[in-house]
């Protein structure tokens, strides 16, 4: 079923109050009324803590919080005990990379295309002499070179890789990577920050051991993210941030830790964020992730067609729209990326990000200059009319070069 983006826009208050053409959803997506109301409902109706106190407000908070966990887990094809709430994808990635067991296997395999949130924890582990980094090769069109999968070997503790990159919107060949990792006895951590919001991701079918994603990139609240993991994979992790509610018992002689997910949820949690994230999962599920994916492929095609006609335009990654979500990074000849983005905002209030998108090695691997590129990232609320405005505006800007 095709999405009626024009009708959907009525669900997003910011699109009613602002006339901006919002093409920056890969940075953060807009919030529908359902999410805003759900977040507010915690503050208005509950405002208590879960899992600690025994009064009725605390019990209700616990019920709503755990119900949210259940709904979010279901959205990604997981079970509630498999879902740990985190601050965002960055924290979820740090949790796994910093807590994994490197006693017998040292190597962490990844790709240069990753977000800094995934690369930096690996680099930190290497700097501390805890782990060793291994990089899969990347082809000029931005795809992972499958011939380099042999890098994943018996010394590999963890393979940490994107589902969909934030620089090209293209997917990694996860099926092959997961198989290669499991054949070698390594764990697989998938960065789903750009994958979960834009496509149907089923944790069970994915086969990975961990999946990290954020609420705010899928129209949910900021400050809430998730780490989904298999029970046996969580058991292989050391503790990360510890504190209240992560333990069964504590004495000065020792600690008995709780099992996941509680073992990794120290302190008071972001209850309103979790409730808001559950609301957006329901919202997206009602629209249908397959429908959103189809809409995005359609938008990607129109976007790429528009950019391809710009004089001197360079599109990073494979220009085949069927291989991407509605995200395109590009440059215009003779115009710096920041300037192009600022001019698009000034001329037609088009909101786009420019720079290296917290993926500097990735942009270098794609052949972008050190200033980076302009990124247009669309979502379910973007329309053909907005792509037309984008095309007209970028035509004018491209002629400046």
């Amino acid at each position: 079923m095709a999405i009626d983006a024009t009708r959907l826009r009525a669900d997003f208050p910011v699109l009613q109050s602002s006339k901006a053409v919002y093409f920056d959803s890969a940075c953060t997506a807009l919030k529908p009324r359902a999410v805003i109301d759900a977040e507010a409902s915690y503050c208005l109706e509950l405002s208590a803590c879960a899992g600690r106190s025994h009064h009725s407000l605390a019990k209700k908070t616990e019920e709503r919080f755990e119900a949210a966990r259940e709904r979010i887990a279901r959205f990604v094809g997981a079970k509630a005990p498999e879902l740990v709430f985190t601050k965002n994808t960055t924290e979820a990635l740090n949790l796994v990379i910093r807590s994994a067991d490197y006693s017998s296997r040292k190597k962490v395999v990844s790709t240069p295309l990753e977000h800094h949130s995934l690369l930096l924890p690996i680099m930190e582990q290497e700097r501390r002499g805890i782990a060793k980094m291994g990089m899969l090769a990347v082809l000029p069109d931005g795809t992972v070179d499958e011939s380099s999968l042999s890098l994943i070997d018996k010394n590999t503790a963890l393979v940490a890789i994107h589902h969909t990159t934030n620089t090209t919107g293209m997917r990694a060949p996860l099926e092959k990577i997961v198989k290669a990792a499991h054949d070698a006895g390594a764990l697989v951590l998938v960065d789903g920050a750009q994958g979960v919001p834009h496509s149907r991701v089923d944790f069970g079918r994915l086969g990975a051991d961990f999946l990290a994603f954020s609420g705010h990139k899928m129209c949910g609240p900021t400050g809430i993210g998730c780490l989904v993991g298999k029970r046996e994979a969580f058991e292989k992790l050391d503790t990360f941030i510890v504190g209240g509610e992560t333990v069964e018992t504590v004495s000065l002689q020792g600690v008995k830790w709780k099992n996941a997910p509680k073992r990794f949820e120290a302190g008071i949690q972001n209850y309103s964020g979790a409730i808001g994230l559950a609301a957006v999962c329901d919202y997206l599920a009602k629209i249908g992730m397959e429908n959103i994916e189809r809409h995005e492929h359609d938008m990607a095609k129109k976007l790429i067609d528009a950019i391809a006609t710009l004089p001197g335009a360079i599109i990073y990654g494979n220009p085949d729209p069927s291989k991407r979500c509605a995200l395109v990074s590009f440059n215009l000849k003779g115009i710096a990326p920041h300037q192009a983005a600022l001019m698009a905002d000034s001329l037609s209030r088009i909101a786009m990000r420019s720079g290296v998108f917290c993926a500097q090695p990735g942009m270098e691997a794609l052949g972008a200059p050190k200033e980076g590129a302009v990124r247009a990232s669309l979502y379910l609320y973007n329309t053909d009319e907005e792509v037309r405005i984008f095309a007209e505006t970028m035509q004018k800007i491209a002629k400046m070069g």
Partner: protein
Amino acid sequence: MLCFVALAVFLFLSVFSAKYRPLARRALDCVVKKATLRPCDTGLDEEIKAASISGIMKISPGGASFLNRHFEAFSLLFTLLFFASLFFAAQGMYNFVVYGNCNGFEGGFCIYSGLQNAAFLKAPTSLQGISAGNPNANITLIEFGCYTCPYTKAAETGVQGMLSKYGNSVHYVYKAFPLPAHPNSREAALAAFCANDEGKYWEYRAALFGRQEDVMQNGTVALYSIARSLNLTGFDACYASGKHSEQLQESTDECTASGIYGTPTFFVNGKAFAGPGAIFDAEKEVKRLLGE
């Protein structure tokens, strides 16, 4: 390069509005980095460039394209011009304070002291108008003024001071030049002529300047109110009939022919004085002619 200009501009604007202070801080950060040979990463240059080119693009896409291609050269030129202007302005101010003229000892045209003897300002050929002082004096001081002009009002104290000091040595002539930009300027000029008919011009003129705001806002009502306070019995007949319309038109035509662009403008024996502080320059000229 533009961050140097931006710093000066935003620092100045920051004095008047807090919203410019973050911009001034960013410009300062950029200037410090450039001064220490580091790349400026505040993005301010790019924002200025994007805003400038976007603005020009709406008027002239070709011009915007040209500016985009040569932006660095334009930035450098603009920055050099800006700082050269600042230097010369500061030098002029220093000279003005120390020597009384922006050019120092050399003298000549100085923008701070107004226009003197500008070629486009031609002395009037007639002495028609409201007269005071000594008609046989060797020095003639002509003023082109507007009763509802705040600058003419500001100069009035100086005019009266000169008349009281040099009344015997100077022949003063006032020529009405009602400027359309000043509300009720024409009405005030006609009313002053009517007061002159009854020999009460100077009282009426003092009241016009004293109640300038009232005259500008309430026009005829205020003019009649002043006339009543001075017991001008023939005022209504004179003013209502527009008795002096022709005389006012002649005065206005004369002003236009002289190239007057603003009020007040003074002529001392044919030498023009206009702009800021013109009355003081005119007084200096009178003193010079009197050998004081």
